[in-house]
């Protein structure tokens, strides 16, 4: 018998601090597998953001920089401009990327910064205990929307992939999820492509991963998956919002 599945090399051999059933771990593995398969661990520099994934610098075996809240893509820009040969990725949650870091996100994207962005959208601030995120759904109950997110006062959720897909600098904007084996495999392909695009010098690639937060949603992991399917996916449709390789006639 041969080993057909094991922890990828780029993933550090340490336990994750994430809550039971939190899908961060799945996405970490997919990123590490992409790094392994492309053989770029030695050149990779990851930028950890602020939020639950702040400790990502402990979980990847490549070089890592921990960034201020929201600034991961500015930090990534600095690394990439200094070392174009490096494969630079950010790993950010919804609060980090789509609230405090919106400016850095939009401008890294419109500059066509040749980086890979992994965006975890779980519609809540996990690390601080479940406050409203920019992606929290209308009516969603969080610590700071105890009566449900009222769009009249708290505004509407932001769809980042759709918004970023309008920018010329973007090579890939794709939304995936990790609620099932099929979707995890699709997410893997998207993440790998986002790294390949960088290696091929195509510019900014973002993969938004619709994810769960069982603890702060107040649901068991299996119920959180169901909530994601019933509530998140209708608001955040999966799909490829922009793909320059497809426009160039490449494989989809």
């Amino acid at each position, binding site marked *: 018998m041969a080993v057909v599945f094991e922890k990828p090399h780029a993933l550090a051999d340490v336990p*994750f601090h994430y809550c039971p059933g939190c899908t961060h771990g799945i996405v970490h593995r997919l990123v590490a597998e992409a790094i392994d398969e492309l053989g770029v661990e030695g050149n990779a520099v990851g930028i950890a953001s602020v939020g639950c994934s702040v400790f990502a610098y402990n979980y990847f075996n490549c070089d890592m920089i921990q960034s201020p809240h929201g600034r991961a893509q500015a930090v990534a820009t600095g690394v990439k401009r200094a070392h174009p040969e490096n494969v630079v990725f950010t790993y950010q949650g919804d609060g980090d990327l789509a609230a405090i870091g919106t400016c850095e996100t939009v401008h890294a994207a419109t500059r066509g910064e040749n980086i890979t962005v992994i965006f975890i959208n779980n519609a809540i601030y996990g690390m601080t205990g479940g406050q409203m995120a920019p992606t929290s759904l209308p009516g969603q109950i969080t610590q700071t929307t105890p009566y449900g997110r009222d769009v009249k006062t708290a505004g509407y959720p932001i769809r980042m992939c759709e918004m970023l897909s309008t920018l010329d600098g973007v090579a890939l904007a794709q939304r995936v999820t990790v609620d099932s*084996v099929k979707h995890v495999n699709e997410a893997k392909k998207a993440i790998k492509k986002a790294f390949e695009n960088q290696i091929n010098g195509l510019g900014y690639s973002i993969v938004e991963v619709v994810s769960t937060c069982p603890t702060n949603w107040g649901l068991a992991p299996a119920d959180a998956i169901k909530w994601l399917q019933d509530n998140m996916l209708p608001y955040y449709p999966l799909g490829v919002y922009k793909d320059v390789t497809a426009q160039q006639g490449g494989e989809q």
Partner: protein
Amino acid sequence: MAKITINESLCKGCEMCVNACPKHLLELAKDRINAKGYHPSQITDQSQCIGCKSCAIMCPDVCITVEK
């Protein structure tokens, strides 16, 4: 012929693997807890495993190794 190995010390008993197994071969070991305080996942009948990797693919803590 396939075999899965679960690193019980990393398991948080989230049951993502239990729900993912198409052959319903996984369960939480209610008779023991690991150092983290969780009932770890265990396989009920290794001989029935088809090595589809579904459990490993859905495991958020990357504690499952699959051989085939």
